[in-house]
């Protein structure tokens, strides 16, 4: 009986803490949302399962020598997220942006959500129960970039202990973009503005598409060396795609490499959501601030869209400004849907893809700046 007693004490049933129990419930909810609701399942399933595993008492998968500990090294050293950016670059068509260069500014305006949230985190730090160092505030703010790899890269560099909550907030809100954005978009535009039909985009030549990643990499990294890993890999991926001479490389990065890294990144990010790291007032603050970040980014994008609507004499539909938050391609689709509801013959998707991919560059630039200040 003594051995049974000892065995029982060694089980997770006996040694589970309340925190671990809550975390397991949260993980199950995320799995439900990913599988049943289709919320960003490619990352939420691995993340949620990572959460599950790391909160199993006594399993020790994240302790030195544990499986997740080793896999986590690629996250901790900031290797996986730029690799995913390589793959994302190989899957992204910057054509709509090249065809309509002005739309890139909407991708800049929407980044204000990041910095508004940053100020918010600093203000929360003044509260007695919440604490945000500058680096933690910066990592939290990048949720507003609405771009997963950027958020995870910056967080792994500035505040690795927040990887769990920040990843979950970032991917959850990205999945919720179709719910968060429309009311804001409608509140900040007039019916007339939403009905604006934009003229067709010009054809973009192959040469332009090949030169684009090179020029953007050169200029952006020279201006902001701390953005080199993100922008460099994104643009290398895009060059591989657009060069047209290495189709197998483009194919492998978009498929095998993408999904292998995705699963490793997902599990290990989830594995940073241990109960004692996760169940804090800081996490609650991060989740609240993340919503602020998405909302304010959407709002400033739309408002800047109104400005461009005015300056262009009514040629630009301000709805495409909401796509500036990144969240490719969901935010662009939302702009399309909201626009079409007002005017069924309206077709904004390709116009919204411009600010949408510009938002990825804008977020990476913002991440570079935060890394410069707090790295």
């Amino acid at each position, binding site marked *: 009986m003594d051995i049974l007693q000892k065995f029982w004490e060694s089980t997770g049933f006996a040694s589970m803490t309340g925190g671990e129990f809550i975390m397991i419930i949260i993980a199950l909810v995320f799995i439900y949302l990913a599988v049943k609701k289709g919320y960003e399942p490619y990352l939420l399933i691995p993340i949620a399962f990572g959460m599950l595993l790391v909160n199993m008492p006594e399993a020790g998968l994240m302790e030195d020598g544990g499986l997740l500990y080793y896999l986590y090294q690629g996250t901790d050293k900031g290797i996986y997220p730029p690799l995913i950016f390589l793959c994302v670059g190989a899957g992204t068509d910057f054509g709509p942006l090249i065809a309509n*260069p002005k739309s890139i500014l909407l991708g800049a305006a929407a980044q*204000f959500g990041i910095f508004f949230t940053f100020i918010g985190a600093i203000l929360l730090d003044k509260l007695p129960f919440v604490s945000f*160092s500058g680096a933690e*505030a910066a990592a939290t703010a990048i949720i507003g970039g609405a771009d997963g790899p950027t958020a995870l890269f910056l967080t792994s560099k500035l505040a690795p202990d927040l990887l769990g909550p920040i990843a979950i907030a970032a991917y959850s809100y990205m999945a919720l973009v179709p719910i968060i954005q429309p009311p804001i978009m409608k509140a900040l535009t007039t019916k007339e503005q939403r009905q604006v039909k934009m003229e067709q985009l010009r054809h*973009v*030549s192959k040469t332009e598409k090949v030169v684009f990643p090179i020029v953007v990499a050169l*200029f952006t990294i020279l201006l902001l060396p701390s953005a080199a890993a993100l922008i460099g890999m994104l643009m290398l991926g895009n060059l591989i795609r657009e060069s*047209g001479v290495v189709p197998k490389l483009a194919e492998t990065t978009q498929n095998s490499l993408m999904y292998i890294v995705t699963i490793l990144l997902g599990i290990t990010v989830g594995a940073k959501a241990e109960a004692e790291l996760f169940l804090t007032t800081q996490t609650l603050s991060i989740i609240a601030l993340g919503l602020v970040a998405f909302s304010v980014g959407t709002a400033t994008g739309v408002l800047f869209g109104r400005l461009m609507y005015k300056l262009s004499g009514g040629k630009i539909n301000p709805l495409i400004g909401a796509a500036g938050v990144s969240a490719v391609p969901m935010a662009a689709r939302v702009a399309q849907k909201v626009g079409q509801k007002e005017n069924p013959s309206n077709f904004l998707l390709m116009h919204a893809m411009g600010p949408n991919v510009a938002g990825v560059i804008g977020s990476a630039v*913002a991440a570079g700046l935060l890394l410069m200040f707090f790295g």
Partner: protein
Amino acid sequence: MNLQDGISLGEAIFITLFSMAIVFVTLLVISFILAGFKSVFYKEEKKVPVKKEVPPISDNAVVDSTEELVDNDEEIVAVIASAIAAQTGESVENIYIRNIRRVPQNSPAWAVAGRQEGIHNNFNRR
């Protein structure tokens, strides 16, 4: 500024203003460069069309075996087209599947060499 610990609201506002300025300047410059693209590359290309290095495998091949139309066929064709696109690097719009014809009876001898190119080259038939 010492930013390693908690920072003041003033510092936060300063970082915000400074960063948003840099973000805007960066993307504005890229916007100007892209505007320049149109005049430099776009016209140029019309004069001197880019020589295609990798000839598309199936620019105009179109499959169209019989006339009986069945529901959901478009999707089957789309799947096949996307599979071919993935393999050939050609964009889906440029692939039309029209018909399936007898395979060449004797494959050229250097089809074998093609399989050996390994790292040096990918499978492209000329």
